[in-house]
């Protein structure tokens, strides 16, 4: 695997004329030391030189993540984008406390993340709703698990309204559409008031119309609740449409290549000039802009 020479800004594009590109990330491999994180006072989540290797069935080791550092500000919407297999899920699972890093540290609000908790909400790609529970029961699962259901019972209805599922309270997951199910999964995590909501390609399995619909819902919820969001996605447009900051990762070993800030005010127009220019840059970085992308960057 070769890291291509990156002339300016570490991103292989002319960053001087593109103020949204974070020039402090000079090269992918030094992004860590010069993490363009917001000043530490607003920081809610800190990922500090995290490394993780897996051993596959044949005994080969796969370096899923090498020396990844990232800082997320309170209320920020961060997207992680990168080709398949570059360790996005691995990273998100470690943030959630579902996996432990080999070295490095993950810190939430000054506290080391050691195990999963309701503070770190997680929305899986699909199929994580409990099939034996109704929509209503799924949404109240966290409240019940923590023994606060009685006090907060009224919130369940609010959230069902918020995600537009009124009338489907008593439906079971297999009786609703995939898009509806993902909205339930988002509500189920949000009702716990997590400090950070982690979303692992929550719309990956959905068609583009449903996806746009949920993106708007997600933005609406984010603005209303001001929850910090970390979204893993394959979809460049989705990342630009939603995030304050986009993290670009490269595979084998999984590393952060750079950051892109998106300063377009909401609501964003998917066809706007700034939008398209950022889009072009990202595609450029991912080597997808031209007709034949290098195979290892295929998404």
């Amino acid at each position, binding site marked *: 695997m070769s890291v291509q020479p990156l002339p300016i800004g570490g991103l292989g594009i002319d960053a001087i004329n593109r103020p949204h590109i974070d020039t402090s990330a000079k090269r992918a491999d030094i992004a860590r030391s010069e993490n363009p994180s917001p000043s530490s006072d607003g920081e809610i989540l800190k990922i500090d030189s995290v490394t993780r290797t897996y051993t596959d069935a044949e005994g080969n080791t796969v370096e899923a993540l090498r020396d990844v550092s990232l800082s997320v500000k309170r209320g920020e919407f961060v997207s992680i984008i990168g080709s398949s297999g570059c360790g996005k899920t691995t990273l998100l699972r470690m943030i*959630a*406390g*579902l996996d432990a890093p080999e070295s490095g540290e993950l810190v939430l609000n000054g506290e080391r993340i050691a*195990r*999963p*908790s*309701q503070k*770190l*909400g*997680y929305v*899986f790609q699909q*199929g*994580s*709703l*409990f*099939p*034996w*529970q*109704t929509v209503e029961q799924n949404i109240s*699962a*966290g409240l*019940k*698990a*923590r023994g606060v259901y009685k006090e907060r019972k009224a919130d369940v209805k609010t959230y069902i309204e918020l995600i*537009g*599922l009124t*009338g*489907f309270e008593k439906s*079971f997951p*297999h*009786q609703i559409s995939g898009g*509806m199910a993902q909205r339930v999964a988002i509500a*189920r*995590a949000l009702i*716990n008031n997590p400090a950070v909501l982690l979303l692992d390609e929550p719309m990956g399995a959905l068609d583009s119309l449903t996806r746009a619909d949920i993106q708007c819902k997600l933005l609406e919820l984010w603005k209303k609740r001001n929850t910090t969001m970390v979204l893993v996605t394959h979809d460049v447009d989705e990342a630009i449409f939603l995030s304050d900051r986009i993290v670009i990762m490269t595979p084998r070993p999984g590393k952060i290549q750079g950051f892109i800030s998106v300063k377009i005010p909401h609501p964003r127009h998917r066809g706007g000039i700034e939008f398209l220019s950022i889009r072009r840059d990202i595609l450029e970085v991912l080597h997808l802009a031209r007709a034949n992308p290098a195979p290892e960057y295929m998404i």
Partner: protein
Amino acid sequence: MNLRKKSGGAALVFSGSAANKTVSNAKFIWMMAASVAGFLLALLANAFFPQAAHSAAFKEYTALGVTLDMNGAYRLTLALLIALYAGGGIFAYFAPSGRAKYAKRAAFLFALGAALALWDIFGTKLSLLPQPFFPGPAKIIESFLIEGGYIWQNTLYSLRLFAVGFLAGVAFGIGTGILIGWFPKAYYWVYPVLKTTGVIPAVAWMPFALTLFPTPFSAAAFLIIICVWFPVASLTAAGISGTPKTYFEAARTLGAKTPYLVFRVAIPHAMPNIFTGISTATAFAFTTLVIAEMMGQPGGLGYYINASKVWSAYYKVFAAIVVMAILFSVIMRALELVRGRVLRWQKGMVKS
């Protein structure tokens, strides 16, 4: 929005499928007639077919101020069946959803009635079947005239024994299954024992059970417990350990601790399996119940069969078998209802 339409769409589909199954009024009345015609035929056959080779009049019994011989009791039974199905038909007539189901049964009921008529003619009227091994239907019903109360007592004994053994076995089986499915240590130590002892038919333990337990009742209950325990425990364990990791992870990110993971994630996931285990266990339990009763109980339908056989009263044996058929069907049906209720969430998700 498009979501709103969903219920409308569902209603459409429903009315569509109902339309396919709707039985027209005229056809339904035919079906009702067919349902009762067989029994009516049997009744007429019994009333008017001449009795051959039986000079003496049949013995008469008086109960609740009514005096009946066996043919009278048989005809009364047929009349009750006719009333039941006619009533059911009238009820279904006004409940369109029940019509198709009722109509589907008509042919079978007609055949059943016709078969009773033939059996009555060849068994009782013409006495062509070898006696006393194959009594006619009226003769079987005579058992209830002779000792209905005693049969009832034995039925209650069986029911009590079944209930105790079955419920304890299910509880014990689910408990063991959870332990094996959840704790690797329990799996290591208990599973081999379960696997090897579980395949032994429970009645093989009879000699031990009879000496170890203070009463025959508790010995038989023990046998039922172990025969229910095995399938329920192994299927519960499989259901628990087969729970997809994602469900546990999702629950943990929602703040769930171990009790929630066991009781609200693993056990609900294992429920379909548990019910499969229970229905297997039910069949085992019926067998064990009857064999245990035949081998050393002071009561029960199995005991009654044995006791009647000694006197060559085969018609009583048949009577006990009829009672068993009804009793066990009712138990199976009740379990099915519980299953349908508990696994409501699976409806439409899995085949059947």
